[in-house]
Structure formats: structure tokens, C-alpha cells
């Protein structure tokens, strides 16, 4: 795998930031886009544009085929049983809201419990929170251990006879912990509890096999997978998509509309009301091709080696404190620096062209638990190199120099 060649496919790296080469270490937030994805959006709008699934003219048929082609590609990419188990949404956030809303409506009653973990991103907490008031449900949080991991024991301990849904992250966007989701799914199912995996950080970096994991729901953010913004995917087992009510009402999702009542369309239309993010869906097909060309196993290997290298480099730097020490770790390096706030670090690093994120990374529950208000986070993508991590370390030292004046 030649990273130089891969990096060349990303036009963003032709630009300078504050007269420096860009060292992009914010892929957990959003990944950069390869030229093929950018081109696909342009080509679709300039040569092939039409709305999908409605008209019968030439362009409409061609666009519909392209749109549905991405659905089939995604089905294969995550080894779902049926293309209709792939629902396009405006993001992973909407995917989780869809499940919380429809599952809550149909299956939850006062006193029922949802089990989350302390690692959850706000997008896998806030949608469930609405059900507290609406339905009088309770939310429990499985606790992390000292290494910032969630173990199967921690989940098991937190399940009660009232637990009606387990919703957990695949890979923590702060500690990098990769959760044993297959084992947790099997535990959940042994107690007849459905499980939702927030796969925002898992999908861009790890090989996925829905039939092997056997989870009920898996939420994906396409813009973190070298794809366009405004697009997410909800994988859901067909039995759930058939059992749950529609999420939003509108055009495209109905079968028959009368003054007396409405009947809803079949899958996948039932959950895709209104004109969807057509260009993004079609361009996301190119992201899947891009990932397939490199091979997700190769990406996993590259990022895992880089993460180990990054940990080594930062551990040698006495003023850096890494957050979390999970045994099975994704490509996220969160850290603090003695006496320097994360936002000051991010501003100083930015001047060197090093783009990181600072703050609570939408994980306030976790930061409260860790007793921190903010951390700095470097996160990796397929285009990163060891040199990027050396540059990060150099820039951190520069930060110390400025503050030690």
C-alpha cells in the first residue's frame, strides 16, 4: 500500500495552511474526500441529474439506477442480507433518531430502560433522552474501566429485566476503545434485547459484516468514510424495518393516500420520505469503490501501525498525557498537556498546519467521568503517515515553548 499515491488522490493536500503543508489529524470528525467523489458529484449534476424514484423519463430512470446501485454496493460492503436493509438518512444522527423515535413509539412504555455506555457520543444519547419525557423511560450507562474501555462484564452488570434496548458505540471517538460488539450482541440477544451499534467511528476503519455481528441496527456516517456530507446510512434487520412505523411522512414513502387514510410504501421507500440526498448517495458509491480498491483490511493494518507509532511518540513526550489505554484501540489519540488547555493547543498547532480537534468531542458524559472539561484529539485516516505524527509531536513541543516563556 503506497500512502503517497493514496494521498495524491485527495486534492485538499495541494493546499497550504498558514504556509505549511496540511497535517490533517481530524478524520474522526470528518474525513477528507478523494477526487473521484468530488468529480462524481460534479458529473452527476452536470450530465445526469434528475430526481429519483418518481418520473419515467430517461434521466430519472438512469439516476434511480445509480442511486439504487449505491444501496446494493453498501449491502455488499457490510454484508447485509438484503439491499432493503440499507436505509439512507441525512446522517448517522438521523439514523439513531429514526430508531429511537420509531422503536420508542411502538415498543417502549413507562419504566422501560435503555442501556447506553459512558463512551457514547451525544448523538447516541440525546435521541434516547427525548423518550424520558415522552414515555417516562429510564436511561442507564454502562461504566468504563480505568483504561477507558467498556467490557462485556460492564454491560452484563447494567442489564436489568427492564432493559428494552442496548445502544452502544463500536469505537469510542475519545479513548479509541473498540467494543466487543459481537459478544455484546450475543449477550443482548440471549436476553431478548435488541441492540443498536453507533458505527460512526467503526465503519470508516474496520471490516464490517452485519450477518456475522448479528446486531439489529448499525448507524453509519458517510462523511467520515471519505464520502459527502449530508448522508448517513441506517442498517436495520428487515424484521425491524417491517415492524417499526415510518419515521417521517411525505412523498415517496406512501402506497396510497386517501382523505380517509394512508397506506405506506414498501422497503426501503417507507423510510426515505421526500427527495433524498441523491448526488451524495451516488457519489458515496465512489467512496465504497475507493475503500474496496485499497481494501479495508489494508486500511485497518496501516492505521493500527500508525496508532501504535503515535502512542509511542506521545508516550515519550513527558508533558503529554494520553486519555485511555484500551487494549483494542482504533486510530484516535486523545491527550492533555500539563497546564495548557486543549483549545490553546489546537490554535497553536493550527499555526503549524496541524489540524486536530479540541473540546469534549460531543462526549460530555465521558469527560465529566474523567474529570476533564476538554481534551485535544488527533485522529487518523488512510492518508496519514508517521511523518504526520512526528509533526504533531514537534508542534506540541512548540506549544510548550510558547507557554513556558
Amino acid at each position, binding site marked *: 500500500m503506497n500512502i503517497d499515491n493514496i494521498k495524491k488522490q485527495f486534492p485538499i493536500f495541494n493546499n497550504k495552511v498558514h504556509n505549511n503543508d496540511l497535517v490533517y489529524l481530524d478524520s474522526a470528525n470528518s474525513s477528507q474526500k478523494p477526487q473521484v467523489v468530488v468529480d462524481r458529484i460534479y458529473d452527476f449534476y452536470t450530465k445526469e441529474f434528475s430526481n429519483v424514484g418518481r418520473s419515467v423519463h430517461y434521466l430519472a430512470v438512469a439516476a434511480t439506477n445509480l442511486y439504487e446501485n449505491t444501496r446494493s454496493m453498501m449491502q455488499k460492503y457490510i454484508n447485509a442480507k438484503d439491499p432493503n436493509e440499507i436505509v439512507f438518512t441525512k446522517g448517522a444522527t438521523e439514523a439513531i433518531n429514526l430508531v429511537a423515535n420509531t422503536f420508542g413509539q411502538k415498543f417502549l412504555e413507562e419504566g422501560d430502560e435503555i442501556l447506553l455506555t459512558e463512551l457514547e457520543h451525544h448523538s447516541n444519547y440525546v435521541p434516547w433522552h427525548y423518550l424520558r*419525557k415522552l414515555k417516562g423511560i429510564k436511561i442507564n450507562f454502562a461504566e468504563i474501566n480505568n483504561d477507558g474501555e467498556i467490557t462485556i462484564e460492564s454491560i452484563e452488570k447494567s442489564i436489568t429485566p427492564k432493559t428494552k434496548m442496548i445502544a452502544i458505540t463500536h469505537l469510542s471517538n475519545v479513548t479509541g476503545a473498540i467494543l466487543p460488539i459481537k459478544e455484546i450482541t450475543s449477550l443482548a440477544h440471549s436476553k431478548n434485547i435488541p441492540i443498536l451499534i453507533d458505527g460512526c467511528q467503526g465503519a470508516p476503519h474496520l471490516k464490517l459484516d452485519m450477518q456475522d455481528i448479528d446486531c439489529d441496527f448499525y448507524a453509519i456516517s458517510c462523511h467520515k468514510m471519505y464520502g459527502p456530507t449530508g448522508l448517513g446510512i441506517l442498517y436495520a434487520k428487515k424484521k425491524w424495518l417491517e415492524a417499526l412505523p415510518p419515521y417521517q411522512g411525505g412523498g415517496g414513502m406512501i402506497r396510497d393516500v386517501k382523505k380517509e387514510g394512508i397506506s405506506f410504501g414498501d422497503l426501503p421507500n417507507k423510510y426515505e420520505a421526500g427527495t433524498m440526498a441523491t448526488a451524495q448517495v451516488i457519489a458515496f458509491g465512489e467512496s465504497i469503490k475507493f475503500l474496496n480498491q485499497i481494501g479495508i483490511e489494508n486500511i485497518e493494518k496501516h492505521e493500527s501501525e500508525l496508532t501504535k507509532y503515535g502512542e509511542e511518540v506521545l508516550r515519550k513526550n513527558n508533558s503529554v498525557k494520553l486519555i485511555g489505554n484500551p487494549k483494542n484501540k482504533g486510530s484516535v489519540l486523545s491527550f492533555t498537556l500539563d*497546564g*495548557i*488547555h*486543549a*483549545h*490553546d493547543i489546537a*490554535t*497553536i498547532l493550527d*499555526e503549524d498546519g496541524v489540524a486536530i480537534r*479540541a*473540546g*469534549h468531542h460531543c462526549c*460530555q458524559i465521558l*469527560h465529566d467521568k474523567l474529570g476533564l*472539561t*476538554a481534551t485535544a484529539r488527533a485522529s487518523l485516516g488512510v492518508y496519514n503517515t508517521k511523518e504526520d505524527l512526528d509533526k504533531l509531536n514537534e508542534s506540541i513541543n512548540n506549544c510548550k515553548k*510558547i*507557554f513556558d*516563556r
Partner: protein
Amino acid sequence: MNLKELYQEIILDHGKNPRNLKKTENFNKDARGHNPLCGDKVHIFLKIDENKNISDISFEGSGCAISMASASLMTDLMKEKKENEVKELVDDFLKMIKDSPEMKSKIISDDEKTKLMSLSGVKQYPMRVKCATLAWHTLTSAMSNSQEETNTEKFD
């Protein structure tokens, strides 16, 4: 503008060793400020006397060097100021942070102005402007609120 100008000595000094970082005894007004983007938090305590002068001011909180330095410099400045002077200074400061090249108020000395102007560097860093203004906005709400109102933390 470069980083050394943003993180100049006075900001680092006040950022690392903030003045008035405590809770005023017998305070009679206070307000909490929170910058959700950064997680910066500030809690301002005021003791206002019968003549509507600030007889004591302090703050508690955590945040970046810019937000801590700003709260530190502000609390130093506001001691013994009258209610109307506070308003004038807050407006003048916010204008300077936003677009005005300097502070115009006649209430404070040139030396004090120079100190506050050290924060003007955030103009170049739009995401950091809120760090510099948080304490000042919180002071405004502390002046207008009674203790009972602002101490209630609300959860939806």
C-alpha cells in the same frame, strides 16, 4: 498577527495565574457562563454596595488561557466601578474585540486599555472570540440578575 502576539506575556501570565479566582464572601449577585463549543465555564460573583458600586468581584471557572486571562483582567478592572461604568466598559471591550481598533472609554487609564487590548488578537481567530468575551457577557447577566434566578441550573 502571529501566535506570539496572541499568546503574549500578559495573557500567559493572567491565563496561568488568574487574579480574583475565588468566591467573594457575601456576594449578592452572580451568574454562570458556559461556552458549549469549548467547554469553558465561568461563574462570576459580585458584591454590589448600596450606592450601586462593585465593592468586590471574583470568579471561578476553568477554560483556555484566553478565557481565563480575560476573566482575570476584567475582574481586576471592574473593582470599585459603578453600574453605568460597568456597562460602558463591557460595551467598549466587546466593540474592540469585534471590530474597533481600540478602546475609547475615558473611565480607564491608557495602561489599563493596553492590558485589555492584548486580547484583541483573537480577532484573527474567529472560533476563539467567544473565549475572550465569555466573562464579559456573564458579568452583564450577573449585573441584571438576582442570585436566586441565576443559581438555578435548568435541565430539560
